[in-house]
């Protein structure tokens, strides 16, 4: 069947073997020289203590110094203090405004904006979502989260657009910013929390700023991308008419980048929501805080009551801002007058609500789902956790997964000599990417050792590896199925759409209900979170395989299995590598958050550091998370950079 693979000459073996062999040889030579030296100097499996630097003490001192000087040092008085005050005031103002408009007014405004931007169906959806938030008794937390989001999104958009403008217009800025933004996008949300807390302390300002830092990069990236991607000939034509640089920017470059700008807005909003919820750990309040408190006491019912509004908010925000980016021929351009009518109608509803005295959500309309849900969970705990005939039980599964997969994997990693871990990282990164990515990966891994968190990091790594393996097996299988059958694809699409918009945090709720707390539920949440992206990228990659190659394979009489193995999979290799990379990045983000539900390791150290005010421990863990994220991204990074998934 060699002839069938002929149209795919750059598939796996042919080209890969030679340079791969050369790279491995070079690495082996380097290892042969360095390893004996390393072993005689610093033997043993774990990272040698001689090579660690104790940073927790200076960090602790720095953090103490900041705490002591927060109210007196000019830097805090005249800069951070003002930033903090402005943020608090802004969030407070938006929050009070939302409350003053009342639930009817907010719902009406939301629905009318959705109607103007995205049509009737989404307007109805928006109204239903807001009402559901009220029904679940979550109106006030929802408004708190919304207020924080409004401020954070505005700040992110301004910061991101300015950075993007700079990078879009200046090549030098682009060269400086691009690697920074690229790296920021692969780091887990948790890594951002501690540095902000160090400066601002726990509270709303820290939460808002962490959210801005997390949510601004996509805006910046997409702004730059849009400005740079503008049709050269259009820009030249515009220049040929004698425009000034300002006119070019305002009348051509920015309008031409409209699609990217709106996509950036969409991504920024989704990232902001995701982070605003996670930032409950550092005092964000609102819905995230309800989930966080409920999870801490394993109160699944309460967590779900707060989790559902988060999901609704996410879906509505995503669909409405997503629709804004699409061209809708026909009704796209209506006069601003209709906007005016819409706003007037919303104002009327708000005033009517005020006059009728229904600002607060009426108590009688609340639906308490926490109790029934908890009863259901109790029933599940009693009947499904263990001892179900034949299949076992969910808790049994979790226990088995921990015993048979996670523990051996962790012990195995920790048993491996430290230098061999570095060697493996180097080999993988180099084989998949370039010597640069390999170098970064090895340095990042070594930095983890130097920071003195080798063992907990390997623990986190073992969870990541297990989750990635499961994700890839299920994801590739589903992706292949979706690529081969339109029916499967159609059935999957709405599910993937919803799953891809949900913030990381809410995935913890169902897994705690099913599996209790521990490392296995953290892994399960990570798998569920990363799956949609992997399935989607795989299916798209397989579907985009050159039809001519497929046709020639078919004409040679290849069975559909042969077509898949010999044509589609090799040709879709870049997409599959991208799926792996995305899978790894997304899994890491959730495995870290899993520290909140007993995942242990680095995530737990961050939570512990925050809870105990031991910022040094948390900061070291945060730095290790950054390094781990860098390492995992670089190891799986194919030579071309990827487009970024939704949120």
């Amino acid at each position, binding site marked *: 069947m060699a002839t069938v693979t002929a149209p795919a000459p750059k598939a796996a073996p042919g080209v890969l073997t030679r340079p791969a062999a050369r790279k491995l040889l070079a690495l082996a030579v380097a290892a042969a020289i360095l390893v004996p030296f390393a072993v005689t100097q610093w033997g043993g499996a774990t990272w040698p203590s001689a090579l660690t630097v104790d940073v927790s003490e200076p960090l602790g001192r720095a953090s103490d110094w900041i705490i002591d000087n927060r109210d007196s040092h000019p830097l805090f008085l005249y800069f951070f203090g003002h930033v903090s005050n402005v943020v608090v005031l802004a969030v407070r103002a938006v929050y009070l405004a939302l409350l003053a408009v009342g639930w009817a007014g907010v719902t009406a405004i939301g629905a009318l904006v959705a109607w103007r931007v995205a049509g009737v169906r989404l307007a109805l959806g928006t109204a239903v979502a807001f009402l559901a938030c009220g029904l679940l008794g979550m109106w006030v937390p929802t408004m708190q989260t919304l207020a924080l989001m409004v401020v954070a999104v505005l700040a992110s958009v301004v910061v991101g657009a300015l950075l993007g403008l700079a990078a879009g217009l200046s090549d030098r800025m682009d060269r400086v910013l691009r690697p920074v933004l690229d790296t920021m996008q692969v780091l887990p949300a948790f890594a951002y929390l501690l540095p902000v807390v160090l400066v601002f302390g726990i509270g709303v300002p820290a939460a808002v700023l962490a959210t801005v830092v997390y949510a601004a990069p996509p805006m910046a990236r997409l702004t730059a991308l849009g400005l740079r991607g503008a049709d050269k000939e*259009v820009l*030249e034509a515009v220049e*040929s*008419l*004698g425009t000034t640089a300002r006119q070019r920017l305002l009348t051509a470059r920015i309008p031409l980048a409209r699609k990217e700008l709106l996509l950036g807005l969409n991504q920024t909003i989704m990232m902001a929501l995701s982070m605003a919820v996670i930032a409950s750990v550092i005092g964000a309040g609102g819905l995230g805080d309800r989930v966080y408190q409920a999870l801490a006491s394993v109160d699944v019912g309460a967590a779900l009551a707060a989790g559902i509004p988060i999901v609704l908010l996410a879906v509505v925000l995503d669909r409405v801002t997503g629709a804004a980016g699409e061209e809708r021929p026909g009704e796209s351009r209506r006069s601003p007058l209709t906007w005016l009518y819409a706003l007037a109608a919303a104002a009327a509803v708000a005033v009517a609500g005020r006059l009728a005295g229904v600002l607060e959500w009426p108590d009688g309309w609340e639906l308490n789902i926490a109790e029934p849900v908890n009863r259901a969970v109790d029933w599940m705990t009693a009947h499904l956790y263990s001892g179900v005939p034949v299949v076992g039980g969910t808790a049994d599964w979790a226990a088995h997964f921990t015993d048979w997969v996670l523990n051996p994997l962790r012990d195995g990693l920790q048993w491996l000599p430290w230098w061999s871990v570095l060697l493996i990282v180097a080999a993988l990164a180099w084989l998949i990417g370039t010597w640069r990515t390999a170098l970064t990966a090895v340095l990042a891994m070594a930095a983890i050792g130097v920071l003195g968190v080798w063992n907990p990091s390997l623990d986190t790594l073992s969870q990541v590896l297990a989750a990635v393996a499961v994700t890839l097996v299920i994801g590739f299988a589903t992706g292949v199925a979706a690529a081969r059958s339109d029916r499967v694809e159609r059935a999957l699409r709405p599910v993937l759409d919803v799953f891809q918009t949900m913030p990381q945090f809410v995935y913890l709720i169902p897994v705690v209900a099913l599996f209790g707390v521990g490392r296995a539920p953290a892994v399960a949440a990570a798998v569920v979170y990363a799956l949609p992206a992997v399935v989607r990228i795989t299916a798209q990659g397989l579907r985009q395989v050159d039809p001519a190659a497929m046709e020639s394979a078919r004409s040679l009489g290849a069975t559909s299995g042969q077509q898949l193995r010999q044509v589609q999979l090799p040709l879709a290799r870049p997409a599959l590598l991208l799926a792996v990379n995305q899978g790894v990045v997304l899994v890491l983000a959730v495995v870290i958050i899993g520290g909140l539900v007993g995942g242990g390791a680095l995530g737990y150290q961050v939570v512990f550091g925050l809870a105990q005010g031991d910022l040094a421990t948390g900061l070291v863990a945060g730095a290790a998370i950054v390094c781990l994220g860098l390492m995992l991204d670089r190891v799986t990074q194919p030579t071309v950079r990827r487009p970024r998934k939704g949120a």
Partner: protein
Amino acid sequence: MTATNVNGTATERPPVFSVDGLWKVFGPKAGRVPADPELTALTPAELRSRTGCTAAVRDVSFDVRKGEVFVVMGLSGSGKSTLVRCLTRLIEPTAGSIAIDGEDVRAMDKSRLRELRRHRAAMVFQHFGLLPHRTVLDNVAYGLEVQGVGRAERRERAAAVVAKVGLEGLEHRRPGQLSGGQRQRVGLARALAVDPEVLLFDEPFSALDPLIRRDMQEEVVRLHREEGRTMVFITHDLQEALKLGDRIALMRDGRVVQLGTPEEIVGSPADDYVRAFVRDVPREQVLTVRTAMRPAADADEAGTGPAVRPEATVSEAIEAVARAGSAARVMDGGRCLGVVDAGDLLGVVAGTAVPEERPEGAAVLPGEAELPKEAV
């Protein structure tokens, strides 16, 4: 070919653009190339391997006279686009001088240059370069908007130009909702709306279907006849060049290899390259009877037979001769310049009446012509 009879012969009119010794070199330290005689002597390939530079325009000089259609033609990569962009410094020239109405373009500061682009030279692009988020009307009015013309006035003026290029009724469409030909009409209207002194066209019709292309060419001919606007027209299509051009500059590897009227180019190619280029041109449609005529043998010949103008094409004379069955007289005013008979005219068609002798090397050309088209 069209304007000459309106404003007298082209040679007498003052130049609009005057280009002298123009160079554009892309690549590292491009500035040293035009200055160094050793480097300028190299072929493009040698230059690239020696210096890493590409000389897109090499030592080009020409004048574009008021009211003429000046065509620059050449194969892909010969430097036409670069040349025309240098005229308004959309691409910064490396060396040489450019003057518009006697004013040095290379010495202009930013605002003066903007003024030039806003009012004096407007360009039409191969891929249109329209703003997709604006309606047809707003695209056409864009040049005026840039100049700061008020909304009402620019819309009114744009509407008039839209009508002139035959786009009435489509004012409120977006470019995405138009066909290729319609889009290029918008591009043309946008350039016309600012009422420029010179129109620059960079292969404006290459992306269009043959039929639409012919329509558009006729549109340009009509515009030129009606308004007598000066035009610089870039094309790689010889038919188009012959149809539109008063004068044609033929480029190869950045140099102008021949500059002349269509008749000069077809009738007396400067070298083998040009000769190969014009080989398939129907000569009788380009050459005039002035080149084919001979002095009248006697008073009888000078006194009878159908009369043709000296600038009539050979194919027109063939028709006259065939109809009358005798030799035709070439008459300028009341004067008989000479006569053409069937034999003279056939000689033009057959290519045996070429003024110069064919060099030796050219003998292979007819053989080439027998190859099937695909194989060439």
